[in-house]
């Protein structure tokens, strides 16, 4: 049996890679994919703790997180399509209308 904290450390590494991508990239869709990566890292933590405590609740939370990530991806990508129609770029630095 593989110890739980190995999965937690893998999840921490994946989450850190996602944070790094959100902080350093400019392409809106790439930033979005990094957010998906962070969501998946948290899902892995949920499943690891679900096995650790023999509780199904963690798996159900993963289910809900997947549904919410799907909704978020649909709306976010629609926003980027709309932004691309306006500005012909999805560089997030260009979309600074509501910045200060």
């Amino acid at each position, binding site marked *: *049996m*593989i*110890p*739980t*904290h190995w*999965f*937690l*450390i*893998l999840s*921490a*590494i*994946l*989450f*850190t*890679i996602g*944070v*790094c*991508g959100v*902080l*350093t*990239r*400019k*392409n809106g*869709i*790439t930033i979005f*994919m*990094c957010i*998906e*990566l962070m969501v*998946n890292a948290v899902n*892995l933590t949920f*499943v690891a703790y*679900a*096995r*650790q*405590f*023999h509780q*199904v*609740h963690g*798996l*159900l939370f*993963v289910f*809900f997180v997947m*549904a*919410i*990530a*799907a*909704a978020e*991806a*649909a*709306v976010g*990508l*629609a*926003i980027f*399509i*709309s*932004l691309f*129609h*306006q500005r012909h770029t999805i*560089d997030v630095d260009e979309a600074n209308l509501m910045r200060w």
Partner: protein
Amino acid sequence: MAQFVPFAVFFFFAAVAVIFAAAVVLHRNPVVGALSLVASFFALAVMYVLLEAPFLAALQVIVYAGAIMVLFLFVIMLLNLQHQEEPRTRPVQQFLGYTSSAAFGLALIYYLAKFGVTQLPDGPFVSDARTVGIKMFESYIFPFEMVSILLLAAIVGALLLSGRTGTSVLPAPSTATLDDQDTRPALHSEVESR
């Protein structure tokens, strides 16, 4: 000998997940990034199998790698982004981003390793579709219905935002309404230009 097989599988697919996740961040072509993310999600599905949750592994492959990432790839192809050159990030932002995320990750791993739980309970963890479904429809029926309403709202929002009339929402922050005076001229001029 047989008890080392799960460890070998774990390390192989953990390396796959981390390498492809790093490719998402480092590669400048978003198509390569999206396909790397699919590979990373497959490796995470293997992790779910190792964690005795095969139902969730199937969901991960079907919903994430199958549906959500296809949506991403579809949008990348639709906007023809694979040829667009992404401008370089400023060095200050790059340095701050890498150092702060590295510090965050090191702190996270340090405390996880320090306070790690090692004792697993006895017995197999039953997490097949039957157990999950019974729990879902007994204890979590209200959040389940809320999620269905949320998905419906997301469908309507996505249609409104990505439709042709929906584009007139963004450029007019002063009026910012979808009433007829805003949308009608835009529609007419569009039809006339065709």
